[in-house]
Structure formats: C-alpha cells, structure tokens
C-alpha cells in the first residue's frame, strides 16, 4: 500500500495501540499535523510547552502501563523536550518521542531550526534514530516502540526529517521484531532463584527493598505474596511507592535520605537485603560503605548493568521482576523446607525490634497553633480522597511530604520525577494522568516554586477539561534548598525566597480555573472538599508554615543511620 510518510507514521501509531499523542506543532512537522487532523483513532493533546508534552506522555504511560508518545517540532521544539526525555530516562519510563527535523539535504548545514537532537539526546535516551531514508520510517518506528517497552523500559527518540515525512512510501507488512544486538533476559536463572530462596529461608533479619522496577514489571502482586508468605518487611524507594501497600503492617514506608527512621534502621541492621527493581541510588544508600553493612544482598533486576554497580551483590538475578518473584513464590510453595510458622518464629525478634523502632520514631510532625503544616494537608488529602487519588508531585519538600504522608496502596498511583528531580514535572504529569484515567481524582502536590515552571499548562488543562487539583504547599520559598541552607549554610538563604509570586487564586481564575486559598488549619478541609466537588481545574493555595523542614533527613554523604529527626 502506497502512502505518504506522515500517514504511515499515524498508521504505525494505530498499529502500536497508541490512542493519545501529546505534542506541539511547528514547520518541520506541519505535514504530520495535517495528517493528524484526519486521524480518527488518535487524540492529540496540544500542550503549551514541549517539556510538558513529554512529562504528560511520561505520566500517561505510567498510569496506563503503556508507551507514552510525544511529538514536537525540530530545533527549539526538540530542545524543549530534552528535560522531559531525561527525566523519563532516569525513571525508566517507556516512551517514544518524535521530533521534526530539517529536510535530509539540509542536515548538517546549520539550517533554520536545525539541531542535532540525536546527538543531544544520546545520553538520555535508551536509543535514538535519525530516519534518513523513507523506506526505513516504518521499521524504525516499530523498533522504537519495541525498545521503549521491552527490557528495562526507557524513552526512545525518532528524528524525522521533513522530506521523509513527505515522501511516498510503501507501507510494509508487520513482521516480528528480531534484533541481533538486543535480547533482554526475562526468565530468571533457576539456580540463582533457588540460591536466593535458600538464603531467605535462613535469614533472621530480612528486608525487601523495592523500586520502580516492581511497578514497571507489574510485579506488585507477586511481591506482596512473597512478602506475606515469608513474613518480610518491605521498604520502598520513591519510585517504588505503591509497589507494596503502604498501609500494610509489613510496610516500612520509604527509605533513604527522607525515608522513615524504621526503614533506614531496618536496612542498616538487616542480615539479608532483597533488592527488587531498585538501583542503590545515592539518595537511598547514603554513605555507601555504611549501607546494610551486615547484609547479604540478593538483587533482582532486568538490567545487568544495574547489578553490582554501586554495591557488591551476593546473588544477582537478571530477570523481569514479576517472573523472578513468581518463580520464588513457586519455589517456596513446593519446598519441603519452607514452613511459614517456623519462618515467622525465626523473625519474631526482628519484627519486634522493627515495631519498637516504629513506636520510638514514627513518621511525625509537630502541630502548631494557627499555622498550616504541609504534612497535615497531605494527610487530609489522603483522608478525603480515600487514599485512592492519583498523586503527581513537583520537586522539593512538597514531593517528599507527598511521598511520606500520602500512603500509597496501589501501583501506578504516584508519579514523580524521581531520578532527575524536575521541578515542573507534576502539573503536566497530572494532565497526562488525567487523560489516561478520566474518572480518577488527580492531584498535583506542588511547591510554589515548581508550579511556576509549567504553570502555562493551565490552558491545556482547561482546553481538555481536566479537573486536576493542584495543591500548592506554599512556603514562599524554594523550600528544599532553603532547608539545606538552614542546616548546612548557617541559614544564609541565598536566593531561595520566593517573595514575589503571582496570586495563585487570581491566576487560576485568569485561566478559567478555580482558585481557593487556605491560611488556617481549619480552612484546609473545607478547601479540599470544595476542590474535590468542583468539576474544573482547581488551584488550592495552602499557605503553610514557611520554614517547615522535611524529616527524617540523612545529610548527604552520611550513613543512613545518622538521621536528623523532627
């Protein structure tokens, strides 16, 4: 079948099951946009900044468990997308980004709106392509989707010269993708599984440490089964939140720099650490030689290069997390050496110790008469949404309070820019999430600084009638940086005060959204209730205790046991 490149691309998207594209037009992709106008099974969401298109595609993909798709023009369109791509790369989010490019004969000529986006994004994509020949277009797109979603997922960029989109091509039949150079390992090695299981049987102080890989692999159920079967406490990274029910008695909450006291203590005293889809990031480990010093380490990960990168691992299992955990569950079910009662007894002292840590230093904050505490706002949001909302966050204190105080019981309900920590992620991500799940309550827990980084998306939210709730925890500071300045720079608040800011209530109104403000604790609940009732985008401006800090805190470079507490 002969057709134009632009149409072939759209046909490819249909073939891949893509329903939504987030994008922004320009000269290099005008032909593609013309074609999009006629595409019936494809919705295009017009954002107001290309970075937002990518963040929205990121969250859309996370909520759906699919590949998110963004489309931007050449030059500035492409460079604007880079932060979003880098964030998705750090968080292993499946995504395909299409960028327009100048016609092939102009490439390398410093043509108008030409940048070498393949060169620029090489270190922040799983892979990228410049399609130079029209006949390569369709096979490349198919390969791009395959790469994005398989193995360790990640963003893949496809750069499309204008003449390639405009050329007439023969649409090739689908063929199973076979790549000579790329064959991810999904099945765990049975010998390694057995070795790991035997270690788990012997352990007296085991801890499961889970990350975003559990969510990516849809491994929550298998993980939960294993934790309960073996009576093993579970701690989660920022990316792993929701991978295990946060309200379960076995949950230790988040670990690391702003993790709970009991999670960090448990890891530090464990004799067996079972890492699943997590990568021993420095925000998790603190001083590396003091991380889980007594523990043997089992590490399940789809990416062999994650294993023994930061911490030497005793039993590596390169596999899809779900398959590896399922194999373990089966092993225990069949094993004659496994006796649940005996295991529970074996862990009794350990569980008691953990309980004591939980009692001694629970996750708390200090109430203050007349001022709104941000943690209180997050708890209220949890309570009034029944813990069922999709939460996105910006970056900074707001992100950590959200992670600490909104207990996530299910996967794919928490979207945050974990690895890169992009201020401005939360709001566009909320748009992507809302479009993926129109019936869900979607809340962006935001900071007053971050929200201004993609505030223009209020127009997008309005255009597509996204009833997103933005909860600004407004401390009039770049709060997280201020906290470091308070603790480590003698309170020299260099350029972290956000004294000049828009009136967020009026700003919401200017866009046709609704603005609400709470300045006293008693106003928090009514404001949230009002917002949840409103079928429009709402900004809730919570004027909070200005110098509230996030605790516990492990100062950078310190051992995770050296926590600063409330």
């Amino acid at each position, binding site marked *: 079948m002969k057709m134009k490149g632009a149409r072939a691309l759209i046909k490819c998207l249909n073939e891949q099951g893509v329903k939504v594209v987030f994008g922004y037009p320009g000269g290099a992709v005008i032909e593609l946009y013309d074609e999009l106008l006629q595409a019936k099974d494809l919705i295009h969401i017009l954002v107001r900044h290309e970075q937002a298109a990518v963040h929205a595609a990121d969250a859309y993909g996370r909520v759906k468990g699919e590949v998110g798709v963004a489309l931007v023009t050449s030059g500035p369109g492409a460079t604007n997308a880079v932060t979003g791509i880098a964030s998705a790369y750090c968080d292993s989010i499946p995504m395909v980004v299409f960028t327009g490019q100048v016609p092939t004969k102009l490439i390398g000529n410093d043509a108008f709106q030409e940048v070498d986006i393949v*060169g620029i994004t*090489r*270190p922040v994509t799983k892979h990228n392509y*410049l399609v130079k020949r029209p006949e390569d277009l369709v096979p490349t797109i198919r390969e791009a989707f395959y790469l994005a979603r398989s193995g360790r997922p990640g963003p893949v960029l496809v750069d499309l010269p204008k003449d390639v989109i405009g050329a007439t091509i023969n649409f090739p039949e689908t063929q199973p993708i076979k*790549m*000579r*150079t*790329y064959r991810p390992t999904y099945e765990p090695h049975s010998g390694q599984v057995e070795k790991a299981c035997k270690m788990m049987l012997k352990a007296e102080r085991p801890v499961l440490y889970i990350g975003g890989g559990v969510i990516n692999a849809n491994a929550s159920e298998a993980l939960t089964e294993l934790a309960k079967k073996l009576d093993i406490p579970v701690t989660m990274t920022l990316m792993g939140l929701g991978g295990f029910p946060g309200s379960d008695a076995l949950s230790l909450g988040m670990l690391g720099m702003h993790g709970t006291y009991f999670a960090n203590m448990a890891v530090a005293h464990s004799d067996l650490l079972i890492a699943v889809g997590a990568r021993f990031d420095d925000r998790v480990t603190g001083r590396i030689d003091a991380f889980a010093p007594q523990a043997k380490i089992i590490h399940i990960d789809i990416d*062999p290069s994650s294993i*023994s990168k930061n911490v030497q691992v005793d039993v590596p299992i390169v596999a899809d997390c779900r398959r590896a955990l399922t194999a373990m569950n089966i092993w225990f079910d069949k094993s004659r050496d496994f006796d649940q009662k005996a295991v529970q007894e074996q862990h009794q002292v350990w569980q008691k110790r953990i309980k004591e840590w939980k009692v001694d230093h629970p996750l708390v904050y200090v109430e203050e008469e007349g001022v709104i505490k941000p943690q209180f706002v997050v708890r209220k949001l949890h309570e009034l949404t029944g813990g069922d909302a999709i939460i996105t966050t910006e970056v900074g204190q707001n992100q950590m309070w959200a992670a600490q105080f909104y207990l996530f019981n299910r996967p794919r309900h928490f979207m945050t820019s974990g690895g890169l920590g992009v201020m401005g992620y939360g709001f566009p991500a909320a748009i992507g999430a809302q479009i993926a799940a129109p019936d869900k309550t979607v809340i962006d827990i935001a900071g007053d600084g971050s929200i201004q980084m993609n505030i223009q998306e209020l127009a997008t939210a309005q255009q597509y009638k996204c009833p997103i709730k933005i909860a600004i925890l407004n401390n009039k500071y770049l709060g997280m940086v201020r906290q470091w300045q308070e603790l480590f720079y003698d309170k020299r608040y260099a350029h972290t005060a956000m004294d000049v800011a828009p009136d967020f209530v009026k700003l919401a109104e200017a866009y046709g959204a609704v603005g609400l403000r709470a300045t006293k604790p008693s106003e928090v609940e009514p404001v949230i209730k009002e917002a949840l009732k409103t079928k429009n985008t709402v900004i809730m401006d919570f004027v909070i205790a200005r110098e509230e800090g996030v605790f516990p805190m492990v100062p950078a470079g310190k051992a995770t046991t050296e926590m600063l507490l409330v």
Partner: protein
Amino acid sequence: MKHTISVLLQNKPGVLSRVTGLFSGRGFNIDSLSVAETLEKDVSCLTLVTHGDEAIIEQITKQIHKLIDVIKVTDMVEHDHVEREMVLIRVKAESGSRAEVLRVIDIFRGKVVDVSPKSYVVEVTGSKTKVQAIIDILRPVGVQEIVRSGIIAITRGKKS
C-alpha cells in the same frame, strides 16, 4: 589494571559516538581506540584499551553491552589472545646515521616505507612494549613524528 576490550558493533552512523560518549559521560578512561570493518560489511570491530579496577571494568563491559547497536563485548583478559600495535615513525636519517637506523629497524623487524634525503618513514608492528622500545631507541637519532594505530587484538585459535 589495563584491559583490552573488543567490541563488535553494527556499522551505523553515530555508533562510535555512542561508545565514546559513554566513556566520557561515565568518566571511564580510554587509552587507545581503533575501529574498522570486519568480514561482515555491516559489522565493525572496535578495540579499546582502558584501565580501572575490577568493578569499573565490569561496569564498562556491561554498559557497552547495553548499547543497542552493540553485538558482542569481549574482555581480552579473559581469553588467550594476540595483541598488536603498529607505529609509523619519521626518523632523521642523514648520511652519518642512515646505516645505524637501518640496523635498528632490522633488529625490530621493521620496514622502511618511505625514503627521502634526510629521513626515513619506518613501519613497525608488535606488542605495545616493542613499539615503545623502538621509539625509545630511535629517539636519540632524531624522531621527527610518530603515529600509532592503537592496539588491535584477536583471540587465538583453539589448541586442539
């Protein structure tokens, strides 16, 4: 410790920069690098010499392997192999020293590949130490310029 790593990769535009970008981005060292095509037209072989402790070398091989265009990564340290480097040396060779230079070249089983009234261009192949040795020996005579190929390596055939 020094490692010679051999990488088979798909011969596609930009693939070399994927490898070198990985090294600069992750702070790995490249001591030498050489690339050329193999028996298969669309496959290149890249030989690089790097150094680092075990953990770093493990990361290097894993990270290279992770590149989508890479077919195979071999750390030559784990295999019985042969390594060679080639050097081209332009050395001063005037009436007084010509014979002396020729003698040295002969000892190293090198070749004179260009002759001009005042200099020779000499070609020598061998291990890195041998290549270094002839450079050092010729230096007092007057080495004007050298170009080294970087190491290439191949595994030996099976003994039986």
